[in-house]
């Protein structure tokens, strides 16, 4: 039993070590901007623009549910214009970034891990290395930078969609006027509400892409290994999103 625990702790420490080395290699590869700069736009389109539909869908229904949930909570003494407050704060600061990034962890993280894992098990990565390509600057840096830059963009659209559906739900389903919804939305608004969510989503994007790349490039064992790497990438990314979410809350709130 003690040996098992020791092995687990050692594996955890080794994992952090591999992550540190991987980040260090990636940082060193940033110098090769002529390589990764041209590839980043494609990744931004694939990671960012192509992820907009699922992100908007998640945020839109979140806004609907939040509005209805607020109506359910605010019965009796609490004025109904607080529906706008709750929808705004929750969408901008928490649910928008976290739920969208959890969804993107499945889409983007799994996509990156599966793509790079397949390249690894089919020895395409080895071929690139043989041809003297820097794997980090050719495969990792464009994806990580693209995710880091595009996740806030996606979250900005998602937050807007969530607020719009929350407003529409308030007006149509819970008989709240637009004026009251906006009053509640503006009541405790601070600019921090926006940049806090965007900053979090930026860190989530960096983490998801980094973990996806790392898991994909470390894939072993054929198709089964690709599946395992993909699953691990999603699970670890989801876990890291929640950990980072709590960390940002502790640091910034």
């Amino acid at each position, binding site marked *: 039993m003690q040996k098992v625990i020791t092995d687990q702790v050692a594996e955890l420490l080794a994992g952090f070590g591999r992550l540190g080395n991987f980040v260090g290699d990636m940082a060193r590869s940033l110098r090769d901007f002529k390589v990764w700069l041209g590839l980043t736009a*494609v990744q931004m*389109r694939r990671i960012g*623009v192509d992820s907009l539909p699922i992100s908007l869908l998640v945020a839109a229904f979140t806004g609907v549910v939040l509005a209805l949930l607020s109506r359910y909570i605010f019965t009796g003494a609490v004025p109904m214009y607080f529906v706008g407050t709750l929808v705004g704060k929750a969408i901008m600061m928490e649910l928008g970034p976290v739920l969208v990034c959890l969804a993107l962890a499945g889409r983007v993280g799994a996509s990156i891990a599966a793509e790079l894992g397949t390249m690894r098990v089919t020895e395409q990565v080895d071929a690139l290395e043989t041809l003297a390509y820097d794997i980090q600057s050719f495969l990792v840096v464009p994806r990580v930078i693209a995710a880091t830059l595009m996740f806030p*963009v996606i979250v*900005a659209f998602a937050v807007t969609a969530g607020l719009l559906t929350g407003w529409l739900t308030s007006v149509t389903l819970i008989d709240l006027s637009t004026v009251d919804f906006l009053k509640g939305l503006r009541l*405790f608004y601070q600019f921090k509400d926006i940049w806090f969510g965007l900053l979090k989503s930026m860190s989530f994007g960096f983490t998801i892409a980094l973990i996806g790349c790392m898991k994909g490039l470390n894939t072993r064992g054929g198709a089964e290994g690709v599946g395992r790497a993909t699953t691990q990438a999603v699970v670890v990314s989801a876990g890291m999103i929640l950990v980072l979410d709590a960390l940002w809350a502790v640091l910034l709130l």
Partner: protein
Amino acid sequence: MKRRDDILVGFTIIAALILVVGGAFFLSESQLGQDATFRTARFRTVGGLGVGNPVVLRGVRVGRIDEIRLGDGDWVETILQIYSNVQLPDDPAIIAASASLFGEWQADIISLAEATDDPNVRRDLDAAAAAGDDAWPGATLPDIGQLTAQAGRIASDIAAVSSRVQTAFDSEAVLNLQGSIRDFGEVTDRINQFATSQTEVLSEVGENVRDGAAVLRSAADALESTIARVDAATSAGELDTIVNNTMALSADLRAAAMALRELVAVVQANQASIENIIQGADTVVARLGSGQGTVGRLVGDSTLYIEAVQAIAELRSLVNDIKENPRKYFKFSVF
């Protein structure tokens, strides 16, 4: 394909930027393109006031809280962004207060002369105004949390009192209370009986009072008529005549008193001779009383009286005899 990706990504990023910036301005109600002035208000404490809270003038939003910072001398300096087209009071002051029971705060611009009579608020405003420079004085009203805390303390006190009452209210006290209630019931019955009897008395008293009131009413009528007559007499000049007569009488009395005073003066002047006269009279009376002298003997001896009576009786018989027999005593001849 590469160019299409670039355009798509660029468009997406620009759209997101517009959303973020526009949304931030929209939610903060920033007045883009509108001039604003920044004024400083000085508070001891700002309570729940925060950056972005509205600044209102007579209930209308005219700005927002731009910055809150700690200042010198234990003051809190609040920067107010106020739209420039607002007509402010001549002597502005700021009251920070809850806008509702749910934690919303606002800064209300008021005239310092029209500030509330609350001594705490007035004290804070005066202290802030006395601190100098051109910062507006500010005061903060207690929020619902402070009021709730006060209510909590009151509730604790009530709980302590209740606990003490509960401690004092043991089984013996309950028995005593039951006995007291029973006694109170009996007392109540007696009071009820007394009240019933007194009700009848009071009814009679009431009737008497009613009769008395009627009498008073008639007396009042009579008095009223008397007053009317007096008024009529007054108006006819009779009263003036009476007053004039009274004044004349007073003048006569005054003259009589003066004459009497003069008489008294004369009497006082002749007091010695009067005393001599009285003394002489007293001596005479004393001699009369002692039977000295002719008159004294006459007064003290009844012989003269008896003889006088007898002489009168004899004289009366003599007269009668003369009447009957005049010729016996008188003899007339003409020739």
